[in-house]
């Protein structure tokens, strides 16, 4: 009996037992699709986190008041640490050549009202125009406030997407006056949507000249932070050194103690990113491993059961004069066909499934997981499809025939 004939026998056996065949295919399909989709979900969330970190900006330094010893109750000394007088020194191109801009930041949440609509803006930021670019925001429409607006303390502001939607709905917010904690601010620009699926909404923000915010809302006290933009991502370390030197000189700090202020830089963020990526890689590995194992056991199970169930049939075939090799080839072809169909359908199911958002994560398929899942499942299907068959074919026909 030639190979072609054997293959026809195998295909006939597959189509003769539609329920059994489709259950086997389903088992493999689920195994493969589960692995690919789980990995894709993990990968998708890893990418989301990465994007979020990138959106913070990679060439910025954040100077915040107070060091690690904030619990000492030294609020009065640390709160005076950062103030507007530091800004000109930090912006000095001679002393700090690697600093593109230094923006003071006073921030807090403020309630805003427009024609009876209330919204509490999570971050109402008083700053310089340079802050917008440094914090990776872009203007969608209107214009940004200028240095002149800062000098003249004009009460103008640009608002984030969320604020625009909450306060104005479909109305064009440009040139409208919004009541912020009793003071009227004119909207002159709307920021573009800043991506990120974090716990806080980055678009729930409004920015106004620091002078106007201090004058009308917060008073001329201390700054919450100073945002430094380095000239390039590679210059962050130099910029940090320059900033540290200037601040130490201005604030009369000696030694390397970190009492009055703290600088967070992009390299720390990058480090965080690297750590996150590593954690996710580990998580992905574990998820892929477990789902491969579970899928593999499922495939093993259904293959063992369906083939062992056919021990009698193998006995009949042997009694009719089928050589062991012919029987093995038939079962191997059957297992190959079923595994391949199941595996490819599983890949298709995973590709379709990855088009949907799963638990608010957009899955991104990892190509290597497709090959891994497909290869592993087909290999398992082949082995556990042919191993019981070879065991049965090795029996004396009467033993196989007596099998119940």
């Amino acid at each position, binding site marked *: 009996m030639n190979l072609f004939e054997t293959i026809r026998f195998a295909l006939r056996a597959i189509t*003769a037992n539609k329920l059994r065949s489709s259950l086997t295919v389903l088992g493999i399909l689920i195994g493969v699709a589960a692995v690919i989709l789980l990995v894709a979900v993990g990968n998708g969330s890893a990418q989301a986190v990465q994007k979020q970190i990138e959106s913070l900006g990679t060439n910025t330094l954040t100077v915040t008041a107070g060091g690690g010893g904030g619990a000492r109750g030294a609020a009065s000394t640390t709160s005076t640490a950062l103030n507007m007088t530091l800004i000109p020194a930090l912006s000095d191109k001679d002393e700090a050549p690697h600093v593109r801009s230094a923006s003071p930041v006073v921030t807090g949440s403020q309630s805003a009202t427009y024609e009876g609509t209330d919204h509490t803006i999570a971050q109402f930021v008083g700053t310089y125009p340079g802050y917008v670019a440094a914090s990776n925001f872009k203007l969608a429409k209107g214009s940004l406030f200028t240095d002149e607006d800062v000098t003249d303390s004009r009460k103008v502001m640009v608002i984030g997407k969320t604020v625009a939607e909450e306060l104005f709905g479909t109305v064009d917010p440009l040139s409208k006056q919004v009541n912020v904690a009793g003071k009227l601010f004119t909207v002159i620009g709307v920021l573009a949507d800043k991506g990120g699926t974090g716990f806080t909404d980055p678009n729930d923000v409004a920015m106004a000249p620091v002078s106007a915010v201090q004058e009308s809302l917060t008073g001329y006290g201390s700054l919450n932070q100073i945002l430094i933009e380095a000239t390039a991502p590679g210059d962050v370390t130099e910029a940090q050194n320059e900033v540290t030197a200037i601040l130490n000189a201005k604030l009369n700090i000696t030694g390397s103690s970190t009492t009055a202020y703290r600088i967070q830089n992009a390299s720390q963020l990058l480090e965080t990113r690297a750590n996150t990526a590593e954690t996710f890689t580990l998580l992905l590995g574990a998820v892929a491993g477990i789902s491969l194992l579970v899928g593999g056991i499922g495939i093993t199970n259904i293959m063992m059961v369906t083939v062992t169930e056919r021990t009698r049939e193998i006995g*009949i075939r042997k009694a009719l*004069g089928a050589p062991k090799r*012919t029987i093995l080839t038939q079962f191997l072809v059957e297992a190959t066909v079923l595994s391949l169909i199941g595996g490819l359908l599983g890949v298709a199911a995973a590709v379709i499934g990855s088009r949907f958002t799963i638990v608010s994560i957009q899955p991104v398929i990892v190509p290597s997981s497709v090959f891994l899942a497909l290869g592993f499942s087909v290999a398992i299907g082949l082995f556990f499809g042919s191993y019981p068959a070879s065991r049965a074919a090795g029996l*004396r026909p009467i033993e196989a*025939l007596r099998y119940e």
Partner: protein
Amino acid sequence: MHPVLDVQRVKKIYGQGETEVQALRGVSLTVERGDYVAIMGSSGSGKSTLMNILGCLDIPTTGKYLLDGVDVSRLNDRQLALVRNRRIGFVFQAFNLIARTSALANVELPLAYAGVKGAERRRRANLALSMVGLADRAGHEPNQLSGGQQQRVAVARALVTAPALVLADEPTGNLDTQSTNDVLAVFDRLSASGRTIVLITHEPDVAERAKRLIRLVDGHIVQDERLK
């Protein structure tokens, strides 16, 4: 000329130690070409065990079994498959057709293993089916056929390769009288055409149609008489 079957002091022992069961305790038997032998015995007498050894489905514990003068115990798996395929047609009590496969495909199966090509295979399978009177049921699957019809398909499958030896293990054990007569009529015709038949039964009227009757009790042959 060799006898078709030559069984010499065959013993078959199942299990070991305390659970040891001697199914055959030294059976010697020769069957000449063209004979029609019925083997009778109560259940447990070892008749099925003997039949399985004759059909090369099982191997004796000790003793020698020559089929057409060839010592079967010296054959490897491949040669045994060839012997089962070419020399022996086996009919089982439980029919043992392949499920969800048409009668024609079931009958074609031994020919396929013998390497006969498609068209010739179908022709011979159809011929075998019409010999047992089931030409019109060729496309039916086993579960669409009555017990008698299934057994006749099994008989057709046993004869399709034109084996010298037809072995039947209680072929009428699961059949009603009408179906029994149908199947036995087929065996009568086979015998008349010169095939060697060995048949197991415990119905005396089935055994009466054979030319020779052998009785087995507890693994021994106690009676061997020629009827015709």
